[in-house]
């Protein structure tokens, strides 16, 4: 109910963002019913023009582009979303621990993260994935852990600023445990920068998966994912065919939608502050 009330007062941009996300979510949930063909079916010639049969034409193997976009929504959004959530859980918990406990805990965690960050992410991911194999689960865990190093840094920095506030000192003097301080005193005040970061990270994860797919270690063909589809069809650009722009546009569409919502949250949060 509170959410509906909030929605009624929301600015136009937020509603647009919400609509954009809902379209994607709809496509992801009802995939088999919307898609005219199946994910891997070859339905015609390579790189066909848009037509009544093939709304967005066909790809480099003659599969229906529209169908693969819809299947791609399911894979890409789900994987990116789970990955980002996971990386934020790990990053925030570790970051807050380091900031509130300080001392050795902070030193140990921070130096460990420094070591992880010293490797170029892509190379590190390649190395780990080639050892553990390229299942989707492995992909999610590896990218989430790599991404959580960045989240860790941000949440530690934000939490350190909040940690020195007098209301946190008051909570400590009351005798509150670390869990309460992290969850009730620090987290609500750290939300705005973390939410903004979430919007960004969510998009970076798409691109990272695409990069991995390009090197053959990401989502394995024939499974459709947007990043991979851009890469597979990239060659078409030289012939003046627009096919690769569709998955690219889909990524942009979702990204813009997510960020509009994030902006709206930030607006609400900053309104509370001053």
């Amino acid at each position: 109910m509170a959410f509906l009330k909030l929605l009624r007062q929301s600015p136009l941009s937020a509603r647009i963002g919400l609509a954009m996300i809902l379209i994607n979510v709809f496509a992801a949930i009802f995939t088999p019913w919307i898609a005219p063909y199946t994910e891997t079916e070859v339905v015609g010639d390579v790189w066909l023009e848009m037509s009544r049969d093939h709304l967005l034409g066909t790809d480099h193997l003659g599969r229906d582009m529209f169908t693969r976009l819809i299947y791609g929504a399911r894979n890409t959004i789900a994987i990116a979303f789970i990955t980002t959530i996971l990386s934020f859980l790990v990053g925030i918990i570790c970051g807050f621990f380091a900031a509130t406990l300080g001392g050795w805990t902070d030193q140990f965690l921070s130096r460990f993260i420094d070591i992880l960050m010293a490797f170029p992410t892509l190379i590190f991911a390649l190395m780990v994935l080639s050892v553990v194999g390229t299942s989707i689960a492995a992909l999610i865990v590896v990218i989430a852990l790599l991404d959580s190093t960045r989240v860790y840094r941000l949440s530690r920095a934000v939490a350190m600023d909040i940690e020195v506030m007098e209301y946190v000192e008051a909570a400590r003097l009351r005798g509150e445990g670390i869990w309460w301080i992290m969850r009730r005193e620090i987290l609500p005040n750290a939300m705005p920068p973390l939410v903004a970061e979430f919007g960004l990270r969510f998009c970076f994860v798409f691109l990272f998966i695409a990069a991995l797919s390009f090197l053959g270690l990401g989502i394995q063909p024939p499974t459709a994912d947007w990043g991979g589809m851009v890469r597979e069809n990239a060659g078409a650009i030289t012939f003046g065919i627009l096919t690769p722009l569709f998955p690219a546009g889909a990524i942009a569409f979702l990204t813009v939608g997510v960020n509009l919502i994030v902006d709206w949250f930030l607006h609400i949060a900053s309104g509370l502050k001053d």
Partner: protein
Amino acid sequence: MTEILRMTKLKIEGFSDEQWVPIVKGVDVRLDKGEVLGLIGESGAGKSTIGLASMAYTRMGCRITGDSIVFDGMELFGADEEFLRKIRGTRIAYVAQSAAGSFNPAHRLIKQYAEAPVQHGIMNFDEAEKKAVDIYRRLLLPDPERIGYRYPHQVSGGQLQRAMVAMAMACTPDIIIFDEPTTALDVTTQIEVLAAIKKITREFNTAALYITHDLAVVAQIADRIMVLRYGELVEENNAREIIASPKEEYTRALLSVRTLTEHKDLSESEKDIILDVRDVSASYSGKQTDLVLEDINLKIRRGRTVALVGESGSGKSTLARVITGLLPPLKGEVIYEGKALPPALKNRTREMLRLAQMIYQMPDTALNPRHKVRMVIGRPLAFYFGMRGQERDNRVYELLEQIELPRKYIDRYPNELSGGEKQRVCIARSLAAKPDLIICDEPTSALDQLVAEGILKLLQELQNELRVSYLFITHDLATVKAISDEMVVMLKGRIVEQGVKKDVLAPPHHEYTELLLSSVPEMDPDWLDNVLEERKRKGIKMQEFVQS
């Protein structure tokens, strides 16, 4: 006398909540050459806004809407930016409240001094340098030939504030706007800056707008005083008359010296002692060589208020940290009702923590902005007494009543409260724990005078009702006089004098106490001159204690 500035029906609006709200509602200001006009009022009175408007400048999000600002025969309202730029800094200068925040830490003082005259093409750097030395000397800065070559962090707060006055003087302006120039300073430093400002405005015959919330300060400097409230003029008169015979109720309220003192039985009995600090020494580095506190002995009795007085850096807040366990002492112990408390916070039991609560200086940072009042006050109830649901809410209502706030405040966030109301909520939070001792760390220094008085009254009533003791940390001697039973004077980590207030305030004093007491501005317009005269006679150097 010739008129240098006249603002007629000055109106200024600020943009908030999607609309323009009036901040200054048609105030007339007149300033003659060489005259010092005091603008006084509480926060939100629009005094700083008026000060800035005299150079046709407003802060971001504000605009001047009328009617006219005439400076030396020129209309500034609606004048183009290029023209205003030539006047600002050369003919009208500004001295901000926080010198530490206004100087660029990366450049030497003299370079920043020379910026305005060189930029405006009035002098070249060498000339500016020579003039700087002269002005530094007039402002009684030590070592005037060389002090300009220091960086801002290498001089003390009072010296920095004077260096800023020197900067404003660089182009020998017609008007200087002083925006609370001494508010952030200790009393013993404040008096030096006041003396310097008074001297230099007289010597150069500069007109000045002196903005402050402290009537006693403005009485020393100003020829004429305007009392402002909610962007409107309350009363205007020359300084002596306004102090001797204020016409408006509001001015009288500002003038009224705080009289909260009451008589208590101050006999010394051992069984009443609730907190006993014995031989405490402490340092932040953990080394014996840089002690912040040295051999502190302090007793607090039930139902009494002990005021801990000292300037910034004297270690008074550190002592509070030792008592609460945030900083375990190197030596000595904190004894509560005959039993020694574990030195570190994490070894104390919940019951021990309950007994001593804190109230902070800044209610803004002492309350979590994301917690409603229900949570702020209710949490200690749940935490210490296990209260839940309706029982807890009822107790919160009781506490709200005790701090004189309406019941509906239970669902408000801190940002929906005023500064004084926030401080009341902080008081309620500490009362919720039913403590024996409340440590108040400058609880009124961030508040307006009248609001602060309300808080002090409330604290006193609560003490009478609940027999709670206060350790009252402050640098404001007026507050001490108003509320305390006993006084402890601290200087550089040591206690120099302590005892019942009456005895400490009566001579003979320790010489530092003497200096401190004589530095508190009084309402008498001749006070500053008298004190300086007296000190000259006795040969007391003001810097001695603070610097050595």
